[in-house]
């Protein structure tokens, strides 16, 4: 029987991800939650297989390494999506400033 409980594992994974992604969290929350749910279930399955003797410790280590690498890519994608959101916000603000300047000067300086 696995010693890991999904009910406690999943919230901990999300809380750990939310820390460094605090600013981008509203943008990436659904994506990270969905992917981490699948990764969490895989980790549970691997641990169960190992506990049942259907996987050696080495096989379990390799399986868990795959899950870790997948988690890293999900978090990297979330970081990238966050950058895109920040970029869009800055460019929207720049567009407003540009319009304000050009309107005030009554000619397209910028």
């Amino acid at each position, binding site marked *: 029987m696995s010693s890991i409980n999904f009910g406690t594992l999943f919230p901990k994974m999300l809380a750990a991800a939310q820390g460094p992604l605090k600013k981008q969290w509203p943008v990436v929350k659904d994506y990270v939650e969905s992917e981490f749910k*699948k990764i969490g279930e895989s980790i549970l399955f691997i641990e169960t297989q190992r506990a049942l003797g259907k996987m050696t410790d080495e096989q379990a280590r*390799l399986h868990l390494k795959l899950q870790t690498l997948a988690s890293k890519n999900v978090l990297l994608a979330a970081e990238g999506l966050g950058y895109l959101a920040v970029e869009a916000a800055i*460019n929207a603000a720049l567009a407003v*400033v540009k319009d304000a*300047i050009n309107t005030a000067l009554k000619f397209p300086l910028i």
Partner: protein
Amino acid sequence: MITPTPSRPVAPALLRLFTLLFGLALAGCTSITLISAYDEGTDKGITEFQKSVETFLTGVERTGRPAGDLSKAEVAFFEKASVDLSSLRVRAAAISKNDITIAMLANLTESMSTLEELVKSGITKEQIKPIRDALNASTGAILKLELAKKRGEK
């Protein structure tokens, strides 16, 4: 005597932000990019790569795979995967502001090395699912970011 009402001070952070944006706009900077543009080659390359991995896993899933050295077909699959990923990494490195995609491709390369070790160590039919899910999460992450770089382009 009329006492002037002190005006409400503008929050310092807001003032700094406006000053920065104003300066950027005056410098002719009407937009910024924090991350690379969309690359069709990466999009198509990762999509094809995911298909080839899925074909391989579907084959293994039929009967499972006992522990042992790689067959000729398996060697050919891993060699092609290595070449395809190397090509994608070279392409990604040639694009500026593409560090995140480069890092994800490095993780995917390490994933394929790990898969090779797993195949040699033996995989049962039911153990394919977490492998498939992990590799789909990895390739899916690369694709998700790449498509998001389209920034609303049609």
